[in-house]
């Protein structure tokens, strides 16, 4: 590793992230296909409507397991602290690239932490409601009202999750130098110092 780089994610975490990312894309495309008629053509990517219906839940279980592993590993880094509340109140500075005016950020900023917990909630709702509406294995065992509630919640949680991931992807494109953290596992020292100063001090000593 070059001396101006520091490690942000280990190989196992990066692989796990991309397993979640790939399964998420498959799930979002197949889920949207069954959600709105305008998106039904996406079923062609999966071999037709029947195959979309068959594959979606299995891919969903895979995403849930991969995400659960990630959540168990990272939840401690995502506890909100006082600085985070100030950071959120100053959201105008965040979206205007006035980072120097924001309170000091640790390994994750408040936006990332919030997204983390939103995803935890969505994943929990998705797996539970998904099992309730899973044809032909589980749905026949549940009462109709529960299936209706689950159908609505599944769509709602998926909507929130997709919205969150759009923000997540955009943030990675917007804050230059972030994507390398998940592809090569490294960020530059200057990147860390600028965006995550408290974390930078922790990993790089006093510099």
């Amino acid at each position, binding site marked *: 590793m070059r001396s101006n780089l520091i490690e942000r994610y280990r190989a196992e975490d990066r692989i796990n992230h991309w397993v979640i990312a790939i399964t998420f894309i498959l799930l979002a495309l197949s889920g949207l296909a*069954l959600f709105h008629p305008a998106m039904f053509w996406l079923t062609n990517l999966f071999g037709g409507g029947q195959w979309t219906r068959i594959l979606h839940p299995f891919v969903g279980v895979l995403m849930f397991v991969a995400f659960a592993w990630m959540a168990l590993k990272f939840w401690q880094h995502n506890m909100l602290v006082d600085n985070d509340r100030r950071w959120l109140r100053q959201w105008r500075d965040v979206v205007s690239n006035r980072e120097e005016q924001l309170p000091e950020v640790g390994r994750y900023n408040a936006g990332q932490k919030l997204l983390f917990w939103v995803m935890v909630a969505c994943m929990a709702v998705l797996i539970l409601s998904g099992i309730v509406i899973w044809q032909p294995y589980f*749905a026949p065992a549940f009462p*109709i009202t529960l299936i209706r509630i689950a159908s609505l919640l599944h*769509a709602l949680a998926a909507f929130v999750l997709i919205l969150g991931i759009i923000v997540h992807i955009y943030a990675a494109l917007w804050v*230059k*130098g972030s994507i390398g953290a998940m592809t090569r596992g490294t960020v530059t020292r200057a990147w860390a110092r600028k965006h995550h100063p408290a974390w930078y001090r922790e990993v790089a000593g006093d510099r």
Partner: protein
Amino acid sequence: MPLQSLDITRRSATTSPSPTVREQTKVAKLIDISKCIGCKACQSACMEWNDLRDTVGDTSGVYDNPRDLTDESWTVMRFFEVEPNGKLEWLIRKDGCMHCADPGCLKACPAPGAIVQYSNGIVDFHQENCIGCGYCVTGCPFDIPRISKQDNKAYKCTLCSDRVSVGLEPACVKTCPTGAIVFGSKEDMIVHADERIADLKERGYDNAGRYDPAGVGGTHVMYVLQHADRPELYNLPKDPQISPLVSLWKGVGKPIALLALAAAAIGSFFHYVKVGPNEVEDEDEERVRDAGRAKQSV
């Protein structure tokens, strides 16, 4: 199923209009429960015409046989022993698809053309387009569609759309020995029902009436009930309608959600165009480098 596409007025998961140049007469099947003797000839005729042979089940000690609708039993007689006015009555209702004017199954279905509604009012499943998701079951206010364990496709009464399209009545109507099931234009069936209701009222059934629930826009299978004030005696919902949960999910929810997602993606792009990337500046690099050198020299 073989009705012409020209007669399809509504198609599941389709947002563009269907052919509208031709309008058929609205049809209806009227089931007069007061005339039904529970012989199950309609069940047999249904099996025969549609060429279905359900697996032989077991008895639960009552006359209901099979116990419930299945993918291969599209109509079932349900027997109710009730005492509505302190005296025993044996109510027998032929259960099956109600062919709602506003069908919950069609509203919920995500597969284009898997469920259609003909301009004569018949709601039909086109199994070749069905993907087996079960949303029709979720959407139906009457608990009618059944998913086959063999092919995972949904099935229900077609109101013999194939027979009706060539001017015949449904098989159950043709076979009914007491005339409890009749078929014709919905208008005529309402007139006929009114006559029957007047007759029943004369015989002491003060609450006799027609079951054609407005909550689902009316139905193309109607009942004459002796106790129309208490449809629950026949295990019929009192005021059936598409569940608000389903309406939210497959009604207003879906365009709003799609718009919001598109807005988020486009909004992100315009944010980038407006404020530009958040980049590490040269001075940040230098500061880190200087700090590094300072540390080395100590």
